[in-house]
């Protein structure tokens, strides 16, 4: 039977194709029991293959916890993670930029591997849920055929690089940050210096200071566009922020450098990564984000270390190569500019226009926000959107951190027709960016850490707000509501005017889903300040709480008083007094509905909360890299089986090089990928010093590699290839035991 690998072989970028082959090999190794489950977990997480709720094989059905008897029985894809259990696939969308072709491939994948739904995340990624791990290599190949990757979408690595969806068309920006975010995303993708983090690392770009879209102050690394006049010329650069983050305890980022030029930012990001990898916490994942390192060292010492690393980095042309491309970066509008001409404006168009249409800096063009309920749309809608894009805007599509899509460069006269087309596919809702456009993390629907149903609550609030949207007072229309299923803040509740995060309380023998109410966070000024937690309210009372807060704000506020200023004026005590009447929980018998969550009819339980994979397992750099050698060796075995001796020889040799490199990199990070350098460094550091020597065989296994390196076969033969594959196996074993002797650990 034909395979996707065969069909797509000429359409995949070589490096991505190879990466996917390695992962497929690792899947086979894991199935055979030849790859440690923790190493496999990290390797799949680094490819965006994430666990989902109930993948430990248990689920509370509302009465009791039931075992889910998956056929794969004891096979796991990580600690307590059953192979056959459905999982989530995260797909990186650097700076949110999507093309029509990419949208169509995403639609295909949602149909064939998921549940027909595409979900936009708060980091501009796309997620597919209920995916079987066996399907992931083909899924990745189909993505790679349109230049998309899942690489490092999860795990302890650099996550999707986000940026304002309006960059390039915004009135306020210093300049378009899109090409910079794309360049940095690809510079760091798979980079050696981002492989040894203790936790994830999030990067964002923003075009201006006062507006929110980029949210640079809540990122591990944030880059805020600036210009300066130097010798009479305007020079582009960025203020570089580090150590921001939401999570359990939000941190405002600190300024690392006031102004770094475009020639400096790649190198600087690499230096920051190197310092994080070298000094960041690895064992205690609760303190492993870079914000803790900066808090511990102080920003001045952190800066000193970064600048030291900056100076010592070996030169890389890619630091500045991208600058040559910048003048060629320009969105291509599909149509010429035009003016909106419409008589007798229909009410629905007017409402949509007010909230979903942004007049671009470029006269005659608009950016339209497609409001996606809870960030979801169907594969059919994805095709229909692709058709709409083809007709009106071409490839100018972006995802947003508010879980919507934007269509940029709409010629203004097309707006009424575009609106009608969006309405026809159920995506013409107004209210983008307003109080009805509620943001939510996955919560208990699919996340292993979820405590309460953020999506259930968000859906309920959205429905109620839409019902009364025509009568909502202007003062509250633009408030932002954001909901997280737990304190981890993936729904970004800290930076909403009104935020909620899930927790639970007990009443008698029952648990009751609750949401902590967080008020007064600031989306503007790039996530300028964080909200205050006021108190926990039963989930079923949250809609009433929203009403009381908004009603009181409308009644109480001074002219032009912002929601943040009003909360501050009222004070935490008074706000809490306002919420207290809603905090009581009735007896179960009096009102059992309190004991179920929104969108879930089961009696609530917290028994399903599992161990999260947000950070992945902390697996040593060596374990990750030797796993690649093992996978390459496995491929050499397959090549032998296929009687392809040339390929078997090449792969066995590569496996040896990768194994040697994994050990060298425990001492010397900058060894690079050149075979001669790897062999030379390995020889000097481990062979000449006898560190690699086996108690019985001495340096024999290392000499296998030296011999193949120095004398490649003139013609690959069956016997020769067989022998080298055997030797590679022995060499990899030798590397494993040497690493144990030298460093004392393999995993963890």
């Amino acid at each position, binding site marked *: *039977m*034909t*395979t*996707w690998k065969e*069909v797509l072989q000429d359409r995949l970028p070589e490096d991505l194709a190879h990466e996917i082959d390695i992962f497929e090999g690792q899947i086979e190794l894991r199935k055979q029991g030849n790859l440690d489950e923790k190493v496999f977990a990290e390797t799949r997480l680094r490819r965006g293959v994430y666990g989902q*709720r*109930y993948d430990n094989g248990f*689920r509370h*059905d*509302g*009465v009791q916890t*039931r075992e*889910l*008897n*998956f*056929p794969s029985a004891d096979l796991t894809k990580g600690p307590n993670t059953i192979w*056959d*259990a*459905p999982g989530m696939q995260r797909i990186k969308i650097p700076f949110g930029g999507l093309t029509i072709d990419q949208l*169509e491939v995403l*639609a*295909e994948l949602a*149909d*064939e591997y998921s*549940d*027909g*739904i595409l979900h936009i995340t708060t980091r501009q990624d796309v997620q597919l*849920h*209920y995916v*079987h791990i066996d399907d992931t290599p083909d899924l990745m190949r189909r993505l790679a055929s349109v230049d998309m990757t899942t690489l490092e979408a999860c795990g302890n690595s650099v996550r999707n690089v986000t940026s304002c969806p309006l960059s390039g068309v915004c009135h306020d920006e210093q300049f378009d940050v899109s090409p910079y975010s794309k360049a940095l995303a690809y510079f760091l993708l798979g980079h050696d210096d981002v492989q040894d983090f203790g936790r994830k690392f999030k990067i964002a770009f923003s075009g201006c200071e006062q507006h929110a879209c980029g949210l640079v102050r809540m990122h591990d690394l944030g880059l805020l566009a600036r210009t300066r006049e130097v010798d009479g010329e305007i020079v582009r650069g960025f203020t570089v922020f580090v150590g921001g983050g939401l999570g359990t305890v939000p941190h405002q980022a600190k300024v690392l450098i006031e102004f770094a030029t475009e020639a400096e930012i790649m190198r600087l990001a690499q230096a920051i990564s190197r310092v994080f990898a070298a000094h960041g916490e690895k064992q205690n994942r609760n303190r492993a984000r870079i914000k803790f390192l900066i808090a511990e060292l102080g920003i001045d010492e952190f800066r000193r270390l970064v600048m030291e690393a900056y100076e010592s980095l070996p030169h890389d042309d890619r630091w500045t190569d991208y600058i040559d491309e910048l003048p060629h970066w320009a969105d291509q509008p599909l149509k010429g500019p035009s003016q909106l001409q419409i008589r007798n404006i229909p009410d629905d168009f007017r409402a949509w226009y007010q909230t979903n249409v942004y007049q671009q800096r470029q006269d005659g063009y608009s950016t339209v926000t497609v409001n996606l*309920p*809870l960030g*979801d*749309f*169907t594969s*059919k*809608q994805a*095709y229909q959107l692709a058709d709409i894009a083809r007709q009106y805007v071409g490839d100018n599509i972006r995802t947003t951190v508010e879980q919507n899509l934007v269509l940029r460069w709409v010629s203004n006269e097309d707006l009424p027709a575009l609106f009608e087309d969006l309405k026809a*596919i*159920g*995506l013409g809702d107004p209210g983008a960016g307003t109080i009805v456009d509620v943001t939510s993390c996955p919560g208990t*629907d*699919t996340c292993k850490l979820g405590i309460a149903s953020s*999506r*259930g609550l968000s*859906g309920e609030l*959205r*429905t109620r707000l839409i019902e009364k949207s025509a009568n909502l007072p202007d003062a509250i229309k633009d408030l932002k509501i954001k909901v997280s299923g737990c304190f981890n803040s993936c729904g970004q509740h800290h930076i909403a005017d009104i935020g909620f995060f899930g927790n639970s309380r007990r009443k008698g023998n029952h648990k009751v889903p609750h949401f902590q109410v967080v008020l007064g966070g600031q989306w503007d000024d790039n996530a300028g300040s964080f909200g205050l937690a006021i108190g926990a309210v039963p989930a079923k009372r949250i809609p009433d709480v929203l009403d009381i807060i908004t009603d009181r704000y409308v009644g109480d506020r001074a002219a032009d008083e912002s929601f943040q200023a009003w909360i501050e004026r009222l004070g935490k005590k008074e706000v809490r007094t306002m919420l207290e009447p809603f905090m009581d929980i009735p007896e179960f018998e009096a009102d059992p509905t309190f004991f179920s969550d929104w*969108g*879930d*009819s*089961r009696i609530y339980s917290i028994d399903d909360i599992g161990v999260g994979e947000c950070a992945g397992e902390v697996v040593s750099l060596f374990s990750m890299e030797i796993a690649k050698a093992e996978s390459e060796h496995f491929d050499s075995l397959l090549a032998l089986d296929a009687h392809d001796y040339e390929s078997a020889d090449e792969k066995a040799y590569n496996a040896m090089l990768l194994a040697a490199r994994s050990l060298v990199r425990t001492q010397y990070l900058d060894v690079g990928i050149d075979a001669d350098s790897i062999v030379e460094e390995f020889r000097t550091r481990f062979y000449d010093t006898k560190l690699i020597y086996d108690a019985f065989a001495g340096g024999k296994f290392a000499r296998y590699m030296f011999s193949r390196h120095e004398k490649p076969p003139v013609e690959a033969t069956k016997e020769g290839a067989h022998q080298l594959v055997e030797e590679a196996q022995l060499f990899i074993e030798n590397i494993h035991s040497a690493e144990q002797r030298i460093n004392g650990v393999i995993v963890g």
Partner: protein
Amino acid sequence: MLPKRLSVKIFAAEDSKVKPAAIMPVFQHWIQENTLEGLLIDVVDYKHVHHGPGIILIGHEGDYGLDFSEGRAGLLFTLKQNRYETLTEAVRESFRLAIVAAEKLSAETGITFNYGEAKITVLDRLNAPNTPETFGTVEAQLSNFASRVFDGDVSITNANADPRDPFAVTIQAEATPAIETLLEKLSLSLTSVS
């Protein structure tokens, strides 16, 4: 042709009152009581999505859903682990599982289904691209089976005009068969109905 995945949708009768919110508790207690064949895992709510998959009871071998795609409500069974040896066998089993689920849903919610029409979607663009050739292959494989199961004339038509959509056919029976007859025929060995 043996696809990786396929789905069978049985449409709700035109006058049937379908309330998505009432489906979630039904699916939840089906999990509690192991009401359907196969491993049932969880329920997911997509009723906020326009013409979407509605409420899905996620399983391992297959998913059951009250689906609203194309604006028509129906019981959708999606076969995710195709362990069958022929397309006909996979369709027959999926059809049977869909009807069993539809009947149970009908008993609990009052939704009625029209068993004289079914949409079969092949969710595998590699093995079944949406082309006239695939239609020829599928029609040849299913027509005998369909006319025996429906006990009379059936029409098989291509259901998805857009070549990007997954390949799909609608099977329409001239007369709506009695549910007992239909289930009986679907439960017989394949050789006797194909």
